[in-house]
């Protein structure tokens, strides 16, 4: 398996590895994939509930180098975006950035799923209280 330079770089120097406490205000957690399929990603965002901006993101991934790189890249891209902007990240953006071969496209799909799951979890837990101001976040 030939890996692109960017995949190798993320594998050797993964960005934002770690975890937030799930109950910290503004933290949304996504856990996707399955051990028997060989890929599990946990992706977390910590959102400023006042501004809707993702101030920090962390991941942990069980999977191949491309899966590690996809989730590492996702955390880099999430930081500084608003929740609405984050929802626009597509798996094809990850494929292009990391030059993933066809056999590894599912890694990028899983990363997009992880982003969506973290955003959903954030909204369910924390955005309810901010429902009045939520519409203006974009």
């Amino acid at each position: 398996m030939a890996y692109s330079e960017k995949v190798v770089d993320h594998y050797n120097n993964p960005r934002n590895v770690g975890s937030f406490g799930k109950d910290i205000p503004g933290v949304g957690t996504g856990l996707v994939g399955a051990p028997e399929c060989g890929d599990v990603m946990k992706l977390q965002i910590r959102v400023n509930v006042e501004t809707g901006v993702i101030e920090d993101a962390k991941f942990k991934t069980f999977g191949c180098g491309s899966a590690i790189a996809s989730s590492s890249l996702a955390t880099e891209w999430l930081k500084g975006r608003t929740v609405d902007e984050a929802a626009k990240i597509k798996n094809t953006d990850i494929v292009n950035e990391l030059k993933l071969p066809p056999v590894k496209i599912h890694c990028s799909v899983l990363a997009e799923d992880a982003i969506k799951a973290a955003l959903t979890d954030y909204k369910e837990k924390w955005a309810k209280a901010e429902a009045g101001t939520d519409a203006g976040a974009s």
Partner: protein
Amino acid sequence: MPEESKRLSGLRDRLQDAILSRVDEAFLNGHPERRLPHNLNISFAYVEGESVLMGLNKEVALASGSACTSSTLEPSYVISALGVNAELAHSSIRFGLHRFSTQEEVDFVAARTVDVVQRLREMSPLYELAKEGVDLKTIKWKAE
């Protein structure tokens, strides 16, 4: 040949002991005695085989599946046929020794393998959950 088999199985046992004594939840695949002298297959719980290879492949030639399936993502069918569950089959690494393998090489491979597995476990959500006492089988996984 008998001397060479003896030499190889000695090195293989040295590699096996060096790894299993330093990594918890690492499991020998296959029969502990009735097996080829130059072959060692170990599953490392909570880390995926290909990611272990990627950490070693600058220095060591290894495989996670058989040579005939290295272009696919399926776990080794040989390991699956031995009755190893899908999670651990995805975590298996096959070490092969040969005529020119040395004790120094075996010690080097063992040390590098231990390092890589530990590094990957630090970034494994499964390892984190297991250390928190969560039974991974009780989680409803959202597969693609």
